[in-house]
């Protein structure tokens, strides 16, 4: 082979790439890596300290959980990975009419313009803009990283900040009204820094410590630093968290081993969503580029510690666990519906213009 020609063609091909200024992105990523490592080190150190003095961590469901809300949902996103085990039988059953439940329910999406973030509520084919949050798409990364909708679609929350690390927590009704400020110095790095517990409580991070904040009451409770809350089930009754180095879901410890190289690259993973029955968690990498999609890479069956592929779905899904047991995966301009046992039920197309939007949440339709 003519090496010289290969060299020339490689140089020619390399010339296709556009040069971009990576300076600010590099510094943001570096800060994120630093914060993540500091938090991990802090939690690990405290876990060791607690173990040394004989503190036993409670591995039980959160006893303060509110009464389950009938039509709740929590949002996360997932990338399916190679199946290592088929989903097992799940006790709960699918709602009687999947089509009615999903099509007549409401899906919320987050889209953006150069100057604002736009929340859409889609019911059937009806697409309504319910809220607009000012923010420069190229600059207001805190907003884009944090904006989230509560499980039943009652409230919106987001963090506003100029340094892409910390900011001010804002909460409003889903239509953008009744906006209030609930705290400052709130971490906005990462994909899931705001974690809903029902509609009325949020877990957030200040410094290296998580806090549980009540929205109506504004009560602020510091959570144990040796634990990291990762997600709640749609009704807020079950929690997925880490206790020291141990993963816990619905009060039971579990172990899942992710691909080592990826885990090393992204500084580990977290449970971005917890199914209604507490069995499945949606696993996402921690250190993903904040400017990228909030994807996760697999769903983990906590009873086996193995990953579960969503049948018939591709990569880069956004997944919604609902209180009724339905699971929605958003990908490639459509929403794929699964029952509580992750069995494929059907799919619906997303409205034009929202195929690339972020699925924020879902409220199933309930037969009157």
């Amino acid at each position, binding site marked *: 082979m003519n090496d010289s020609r290969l060299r020339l063609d490689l140089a020619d091909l390399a010339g296709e790439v556009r040069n971009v200024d990576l300076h600010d992105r590099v510094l943001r*990523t570096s800060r994120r890596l630093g914060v993540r490592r500091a938090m991990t080190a802090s939690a690990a150190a405290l876990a060791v300290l607690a173990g040394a003095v004989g503190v036993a961590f409670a591995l039980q469901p959160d006893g303060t959980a509110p009464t389950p809300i009938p039509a709740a949902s929590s949002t996360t996103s997932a990338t399916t990975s190679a199946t290592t085990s088929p989903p097992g039988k799940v006790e709960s059953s699918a709602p009687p009419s999947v089509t009615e439940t999903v099509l007549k329910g409401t899906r919320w999406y987050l889209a953006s313009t150069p100057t604002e973030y736009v929340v859409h509520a889609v019911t059937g084919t009806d697409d309504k803009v319910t809220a607009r949050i000012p923010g420069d798409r190229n600059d207001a990364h805190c907003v884009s990283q944090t904006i989230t909708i509560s499980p039943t679609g009652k409230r919106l929350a987001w963090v506003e900040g100029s340094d892409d690390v910390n900011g001010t927590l804002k909460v409003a009704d889903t239509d953008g009204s009744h906006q209030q400020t609930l705290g400052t110095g709130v971490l906005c790095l990462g994909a899931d820094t705001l974690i809903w517990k029902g509609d009325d409580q949020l877990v957030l991070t200040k410094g290296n410590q998580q806090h549980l904040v009540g929205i109506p009451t504004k009560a602020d409770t510091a959570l144990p630093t040796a634990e990291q809350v990762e997600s709640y089930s749609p009704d807020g009754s079950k929690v997925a968290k880490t206790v020291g180095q141990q993963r816990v879901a619905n009060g039971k410890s579990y172990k899942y081993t992710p691909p080592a190289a990826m885990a090393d690259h992204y500084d580990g993973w977290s449970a971005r969503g917890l199914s209604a029955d507490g069995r499945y968690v949606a696993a996402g990498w921690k250190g993903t580029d904040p400017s990228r999609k909030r994807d996760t890479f697999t769903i983990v069956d906590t009873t086996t510690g193995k990953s579960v592929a969503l049948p018939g779905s591709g990569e880069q899904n956004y997944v919604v666990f609902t209180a009724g047991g339905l699971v929605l995966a958003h990908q490639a301009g459509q929403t794929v519906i699964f029952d509580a046992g992750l069995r494929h039920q059907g799919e619906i197309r997303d409205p034009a213009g929202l195929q690339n939007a972020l699925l924020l949440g879902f409220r199933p339709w309930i037969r009157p």
Partner: protein
Amino acid sequence: MVCVRPIDPEETTSMDEFDSFVRSRSAALLRSAYLLTGDQHLAEDLVQSALARTHRSWGRLRDRGNAEAYTRKVMYHLQVSWWRRRVAEAMPGELPEPRQAGDHADQTTIRMTLRAALLRLSVKQRAVLVLRYFEDCTEAEAADLLGVTVGTIKSQTSKALAKLRVVAPELAELYLLEGVAR
């Protein structure tokens, strides 16, 4: 081109030197990353991640002249690490239609063919080819960057070129014909 352009330690003397380093070397790093990933955004992501890790290690880099070598080392290792996820996303559908023998070589087609062919190689084979034929690294330099033996570089280079001939025979034919002509 040299395998790794050394930075004169006298060029920069403070933390601002990292800013200068990023701005001066991003373009070169992006070119290598583009050959490794075949995609603008993945290339940006790769360089960004590598530079962020360099930034976190900046204070510990005793010889700032090695900053680019360190960054490239991180970049190549990250790319190998990302392979499991990226390979499915980056794998192209079909190669461009093979050119008919005797056609005038259209550079655009060659680029498309070469890019698609590179993505058909394993990530390690691709990294070795880029290091050897784009970065102009010696076998020893490539081995040091990838943390493998010189023997591995030799075998991976041989396998990469062989696979290139298989997945893009028209490309190999072009290179062979031109090589003979010269």
